């Protein structure tokens, strides 16, 4: 099962905080897909989540200033 989180319009640190809170609702091994439109978040949120042990399954730019990040919860 994949859960989606739309964080368009959000900036640091809320991008990381809201992603982390949403991950608490996700079961281990499940995937969370997060949408960002804030470029620094696309670098920093995946790096921070990897540091916490989660797996980044993909980062895809889907439009002008729009990114989709797939995270698998550890």
């Amino acid at each position: 099962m994949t859960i989606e989180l739309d964080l368009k319009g959000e900036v640091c640190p809320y991008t990381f905080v809201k992603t982390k809170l949403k991950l608490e609702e996700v079961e281990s091994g499940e995937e969370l897909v997060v949408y960002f439109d804030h470029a620094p978040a696309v670098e920093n949120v995946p790096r921070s989540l990897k540091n916490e042990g989660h797996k980044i399954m993909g980062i895809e730019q889907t439009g002008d200033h729009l990114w989709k990040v797939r995270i698998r919860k550890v």
Partner: protein
Amino acid sequence: MKLGILLTTSPENENTNTVIEISKAARDEGHDVSIFLMYDGVYNVNKKEFAGLAGKGVEIAICAFNAEQRKVAKVDGILFGSQYDHACIAGDVDRFISFG
């Protein structure tokens, strides 16, 4: 010992020189030093003497959001990170000093 420093003022402020000298002294004594820059503190990456600390074993991270707001370009050897990095530094060090 691990020393953490938060710097939120621009290079014109005397805090910059204080942070540079404290960092150099701590490194000379063999201590680990990590610095986080936010608000106008991000401008310090453009000061040669400050950015040079990265080459002396000082870990420097800055708030990428604040840097983007102030149009501060990326600098090699300095992590353009987030408040997560700030929290990691604060949680990891033995002593944390704030200059604002």
